[in-house]
């Protein structure tokens, strides 16, 4: 088969709902789009553990501490599963786990805007679990039907664990919502802090060229706006039911068009945060990542050396 025939066959398989595997032939654009998406996804899981990790030592009870620790562990685990998928895609480019992990330190891969932001109160730990994970779950659940088999399989495991993250987040915010005035205010302040970031998280309104390509290749099946609309439908009624006010006076549902209208936040501000790592916590968290990666280099090396000598574990 020549290149063109291969490409035609490839598209046919995707159209027929068949999955593509790591060992299959795939067009370069497909590989690159997938790699970029999964690399960013994996790195964002790892960076996403950092805002919540800040709350492990400060969690209000032992049960809360154990739960948030478990969640932080899950996010790190998601990062590892996703990087495994990315590595196989990156193999023809001669890139390994080490490269993919180091890329974020050197600004060669971005991570999601929400993980550049501050989490100053316990309510933020709750709102992250409830709404940031909520938004991420909608994204990830939409990707369950992706055309790339290894990604689909890993997402299945990730989504199963996210169902715990949903309950975990809800448990924290429900406790605050049913608490004192001060606790309810803390929750409202946190919602105000996160709202615009949550809208940006789903990506731009317009379907960019690469987004369209991803849809054509079956990597994604839904547009950014479709997912954001689903987020509104699922979460706006719940947020309001708690007596919280969403900081967007124009947010409304149109019964005839069945769509939510919302106010576009300062998109350029958020774009800069992601592109230039210029968010309030970007540099601090990148430094922590760099520190962890570099300070543990000797451990990775020692494990290889000890393998040459024999068993590491007895």
């Amino acid at each position, binding site marked *: 088969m020549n290149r063109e025939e291969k490409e035609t*066959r490839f598209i046919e*398989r995707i159209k027929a709902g068949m999955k593509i*595997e790591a*060992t*299959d*032939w795939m067009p370069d654009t497909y590989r690159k789009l997938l790699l970029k998406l999964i690399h960013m996804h994996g790195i964002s899981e790892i960076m996403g553990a950092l805002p919540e990790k800040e709350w492990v030592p400060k969690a209000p009870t032992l049960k809360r501490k154990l739960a948030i620790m*478990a969640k932080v*562990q*899950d996010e790190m*685990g998601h990062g*590892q*599963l996703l*990087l*495994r998928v990315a*590595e*196989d895609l990156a*193999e023809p480019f*001669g*890139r*390994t*786990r*080490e*490269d993919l992990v180091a890329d974020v330190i050197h600004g060669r891969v971005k991570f999601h805007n929400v993980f550049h932001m501050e989490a100053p109160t316990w309510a933020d730990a709750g709102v992250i679990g409830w709404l940031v994970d909520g938004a991420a779950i909608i994204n990830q659940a939409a990707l369950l039907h992706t055309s790339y088999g290894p990604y689909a*399989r*890993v997402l299945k*495991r990730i989504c199963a*664990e996210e169902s715990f993250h949903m309950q975990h987040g809800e448990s924290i915010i429900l406790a605050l919502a049913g608490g004192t005035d001060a606790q309810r205010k803390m929750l409202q302040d946190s919602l105000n802090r996160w709202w615009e970031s949550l809208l940006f998280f789903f990506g731009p309104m317009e379907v960019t060229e690469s987004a369209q390509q991803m849809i054509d290749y079956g990597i994604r099946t839904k547009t950014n706006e479709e997912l954001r609309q689903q987020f509104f439908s699922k979460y706006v009624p719940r947020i309001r039911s708690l007596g919280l006010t969403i900081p967007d006076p124009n947010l409304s549902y149109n019964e005839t068009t069945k769509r939510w209208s919302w106010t576009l936040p300062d998109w350029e501000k958020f774009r800069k945060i992601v592109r230039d790592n210029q968010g309030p916590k970007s540099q601090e968290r990148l430094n922590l990542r760099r520190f962890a990666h570099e300070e543990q280099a000797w451990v*990775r090396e020692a*494990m*290889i050396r*000890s*393998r*040459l*000598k*024999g*068993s*590491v*574990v007895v």
Partner: protein
Amino acid sequence: MGSGGNDPFTPEGFGGCVKGGEGMSEGNVQEGFGVFEVFVQKTQADFHTHVGSVVAPSPDVALMNARENFLRRDLGVNLWVVPRQCVTATPYDSEGDWFAREFDRKYREAGGYPENGRLWKMYKEKVLQLEEIVEDLHGKGDKNNESASS
């Protein structure tokens, strides 16, 4: 694992299951890390099931990574890690389908004999199912026979 200068992890070694440089990526060989496929056995009534893969510098560390990645909640009684290049697999998309079903194979399946029920009715009896036998012997929802009766 053996010792004495025989690194089972190099392309020459690795338990002798290397196929023409496939499997472990060049970069990972240089870095000294390899890909291990992970199999979890949930209970001793189950076979090991493939759940994914990990990157590790040795089989021992691969086992630990596998436990951390795949058994944070799920229960297991045994784990296998297999260097990826030790796996021989069928192709997914090739000339001549490996899994072709040229004709109906209903005759091999329990569900391929739906008329039995109707015929038994003539004798005022009904079809005997395996589940019924297992249930009589071990009670309802017996774990050891879940697969046998499904």
